């Protein structure tokens, strides 16, 4: 596997399947009386968060702690960043303290890539601007494989025919809907899911469709209802008001009517299809409350899977020998 995890596009199919398989085994630890493993004892993981986040930061923190790593949480608020310290100086400070991995979230696309030049430890991108969020894509892929290829939550009994180990997402039809332009989740998912063999379609209003979408390994469409009928997975993206610097659609009501997922639209989906959302949700905008709370929704499972997938990433990146030492 690569030294750093910056882009979902850096992962080969073998890497991605290995991460999903490792996560599937780690998920079984959840049911035990002692949910802690000694694997990363003595290693230090820094959560370097320049943007607000609850689920991603706590998910990485829980993952590192379950593997017995020491965790240092660093958020820009209330730190020397508020006094004007640059990313590089912060990185050098952390480097001097001795860190084995830095998990970074930053509002600027490309910040994690810059960081790799300044620290000697591993760098894991936990979301950079409108660029990428690879661990979100991995947990989404894990959730899809669990629900559509494996035999139910928890990996099932591992019976023959129902074991998803070693498998990708070949032939699964995924429709990603909403603010594709500003979404790092969409970009990472398109890259990872296509690597795993899924057929991805992005659906967005013309104003929220990236200009170069034809260079992405996916189809694009403006017609949600037509795509829903032939989807195994529909992933609703959050309307990111905070990143919108212009008026991309006339009104929230108009957006909801054309691109929101409500119960009548959900009825267009095939019987087995699932509804995903990376969170946090704007209930009543891109997704109706009754859809978010339906049995087809995997939104709560996605949060639980986030911890095990991040455990798998941390174990595979930090658990073994560093390159060249073996």
């Amino acid at each position, binding site marked *: 596997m690569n030294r750093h995890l910056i882009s979902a596009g850096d992962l080969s199919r073998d890497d991605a399947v290995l991460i999903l398989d490792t996560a599937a085994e780690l998920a079984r630890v959840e049911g035990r009386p002692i949910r802690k493993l000694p694997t990363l004892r003595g290693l230090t993981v820094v959560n370097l968060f320049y943007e607000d986040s609850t689920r991603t930061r706590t998910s990485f923190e829980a993952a590192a702690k379950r593997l017995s790593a020491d965790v240092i949480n660093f958020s820009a608020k209330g730190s020397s960043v508020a006094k004007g310290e640059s990313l590089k100086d912060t990185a050098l400070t952390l480097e001097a303290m001795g860190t084995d991995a830095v998990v970074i979230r930053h509002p600027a696309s490309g910040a994690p890539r810059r960081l790799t030049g300044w620290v000697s430890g591993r760098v894991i991108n936990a979301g950079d601007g409108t660029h990428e969020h690879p661990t979100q894509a991995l947990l989404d892929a894990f959730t899809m494989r669990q629900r559509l290829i494996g035999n139910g939550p928890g990996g099932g009994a591992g019976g023959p025919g129902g074991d998803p180990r070693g498998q990708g997402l070949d032939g699964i039809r995924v429709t990603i809907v909403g603010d594709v332009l500003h979404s790092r989740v969409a970009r990472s998912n398109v890259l990872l899911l296509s690597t795993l063999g899924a057929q991805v379609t992005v659906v967005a209003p013309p104003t929220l469709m990236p200009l170069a979408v034809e260079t992405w390994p996916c189809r694009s469409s403006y017609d949600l209802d037509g795509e829903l009928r032939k989807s195994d997975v529909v992933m609703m993206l959050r309307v990111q008001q905070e990143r919108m610097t212009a008026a991309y659609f006339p009104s929230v009501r108009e957006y909801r009517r054309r691109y929101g997922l409500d119960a009548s639209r959900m009825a267009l989906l095939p019987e087995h299809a699932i509804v995903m959302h990376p969170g946090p949700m704007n209930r009543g905008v891109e997704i109706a409350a009754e859809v978010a709370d339906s049995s087809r929704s995997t939104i709560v499972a996605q949060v639980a899977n986030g911890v095990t997938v991040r455990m798998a990433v941390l174990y595979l990146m930090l658990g*073994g020998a560093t390159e060249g030492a073996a």
Partner: protein
Amino acid sequence: MCAMRPDPVHEPAASGPGYPIGSSSPAQPGPQSQPGPQSQPGQPTWKAVLTPDEIRRALTRIAHEILERTHGGGDAVLLGIPTRGVYLARRLAARIGEFEGTQPPVGSLDVTLHRDDLRLRPARALQRTQVPADGVDGRIVVLVDDVLFSGRTIRAALDALNDLGRPRAVQLAVLVDRGHRELPIRADYVGKNLPTAHREKVRVQLAEIDGADSVLLGEEPR
């Protein structure tokens, strides 16, 4: 899946092949494609030290011994250590079932995350841990592995078991004890004591995944 399987060769860790994660799989011995001893330049030459019949008799004897030592096997739980220990545990349970009418519960115990040599090799793929539904509390757990060598795998297994519950007793069954212990660990049930030189390699092949049963001893060419 072949690349995910741990190497069946039991040899000193320092010279062992790693399992790098990534697109390039290491050159695996590929037991499925090479069921018999192979002689390649730079590779050890293998000689069979246990025949399929000898393996069968050894497992039958161990099954009887487990029944004796656990007073009928009523409390026994067999936990195999992946990959080949799991198949041996299933065979032992089936034998015990033939003799006594009831099979003891069988499970698997992956010890990867508890190993002390993780940092010496690239990160390894995890194997399945499957504990029988009734758990291990108060039971006599018999750990089953193919080869006992340094004892480090068994130490890791004892740690892993500690997180699963509190067995009344833990015993160890191995098909081959090749010596060279690095920890104060011994087996309760041994199929064959095999005196080896430290640099020799022992490979256990089982019909379930390797096509045929055999125990092979290999010697590094000088």
